[in-house]
Structures are given as structure tokens and as C-alpha cells.
């Protein structure tokens, strides 16, 4: 049965907004971008580093506008303790950027971030499982709830 024939179709568009990471912690991150984002907006954040990448479900908790700046919006994101849906995680579609060490940031932040890949000693990119042991950990490996749209889950 093809998707367009399913009863009760609902949709959510995933708009991709690029930015530059400023800082990151276990609970969230700050970035600057040229696209205006409203406080309370839900989405997925994917951070690319030279040796690792993380992906989290996140919510915009604060936006500061800086008129005249090249990237006029300073956005603070809060990571949410919701598992990243299958098919929406970080991918290897883009070459890694040369700046900074994201793996070091993740190591410093603790086990709460979902590290999704890193480079092995042979230079190959390998998948890394999440290590969520803390009570307030994010991105736990809980399966998606069947029958409940993602947008509805994020609104809770």
C-alpha cells in the first residue's frame, strides 16, 4: 500500500537551516545563523565536527537578534530527552569540517549526548552507539511510539 493512499495523512516539513556552532553542553548548544527561528520551535539539530557528529531532538529556547551581523541570529537550543526518529539522524552525506574537536566536547559534556559517528584509527567513519546512563540523559534508545505522530510527541 503506497503512502499517498493511507487514511488520515499528516505531514511535517523538515526545513534545513545551516549555522555555526558556538558552544555545546549536555543540555543544549548555542549557534549563530542567518535564518530567523521562533522561540519554542521544535526540530532536530545535527552538529558536524572533524571527528564526530551528534544529533539531538531540540527546542529553540532563546533567540537574540544582532542587527548588522553576518549571522544576525544567536540561537540557544535545548536538547530534549526524546529518541531521534529513524531516518532523521546524522548522515555521512557531507564531508567533515576541519574545525574543533566535537568528540572532545562530547567527552567533556558526559554521556548525555548522542554521538553518532567518529573516525576510527584507519580513518574510516564508524557508527557509535549512544551511551545514556545518566538519569537525565538525552536521546535514550527508547523505540518510537507507534501510532503517534512525531510532531505530537514533540509538543508534549
Amino acid at each position, binding site marked *: 500500500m503506497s503512502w499517498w493512499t*493511507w487514511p488520515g495523512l499528516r505531514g511535517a516539513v523538515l526545513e534545513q537551516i545551516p549555522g555555526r556552532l558556538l*558552544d555545546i553542553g549536555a543540555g543544549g548548544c548555542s549557534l549563530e545563523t542567518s535564518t530567523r527561528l521562533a522561540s519554542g520551535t521544535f526540530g532536530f539539530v545535527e552538529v558536524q*565536527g572533524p571527528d564526530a557528529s551528534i544529533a539531538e531532538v531540540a527546542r529553540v529556547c532563546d533567540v537574540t537578534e544582532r542587527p548588522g551581523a553576518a549571522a544576525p541570529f544567536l540561537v540557544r537550543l535545548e536538547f530534549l530527552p526524546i529518541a531521534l526518529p529513524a531516518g532523521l539522524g546524522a548522515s555521512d552525506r557531507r564531508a567533515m569540517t576541519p574545525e574543533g574537536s566535537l568528540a572532545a566536547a562530547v567527552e567533556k559534556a558526559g554521556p548525555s549526548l548522542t554521538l553518532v559517528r567518529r573516525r576510527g584509527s584507519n580513518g574510516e567513519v564508524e557508527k557509535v552507539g549512544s551511551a545514556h546512563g545518566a538519569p537525565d540523559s538525552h536521546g535514550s534508545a527508547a523505540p518510537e511510539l507507534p501510532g503517534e505522530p512525531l510532531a505530537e510527541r514533540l509538543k508534549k
Partner: protein
Amino acid sequence: MDRRRHGRYHTEGHVEVQVLRDVDIVRASAREITVISRSRAATGSEMRMRITAAGGRQATLRVRTTGSQPQLVGGQLRYRLWMQVLSEESEVMQ
């Protein structure tokens, strides 16, 4: 007042935020989908669309905006977007 409970690590790198915006599906077929959205979209822009249906069925599509037109829905400004379905990335039947 700083409400942060965790330490911060200053770093630089590329970040991509995928913002999730709910849309109402007006018409759908294998090649084209028409939706009502709160936000406009540039013609030619490509994005992913998450489709869900009763019974936990889900599909993720790659779509390209072919048209965008403002319209009033219940007194609110909305945008009717016409999108071409480029590919289907995944389909989950639960």
C-alpha cells in the same frame, strides 16, 4: 541569570538545524503533494517531509517546492505549497 545546569564547551563547527513545521495535507499522489503551511517556501527549495498516518505508518519524502501562494484560512495567513515528490527515503509499517 544563567539557568544552565551543565558545563559548556566552546567549539566551532558546522551545525544544521532541521526545523519541524506541521503542514496540512490537501492532496497527495505519488508524484505531487499539496499542503497548507504556516510558513512560505521558496520555489525550487528542497526539503524533507515526514508523513504519518493511522496505525503508526510513516514515510519520509524528499520534496521540491514548485509553487507557493498565500491564502487566508480561518482568518489566518497561511501558504498553499505545491511540492514535487523527488524520492521516498524510508517507509515504516507498524
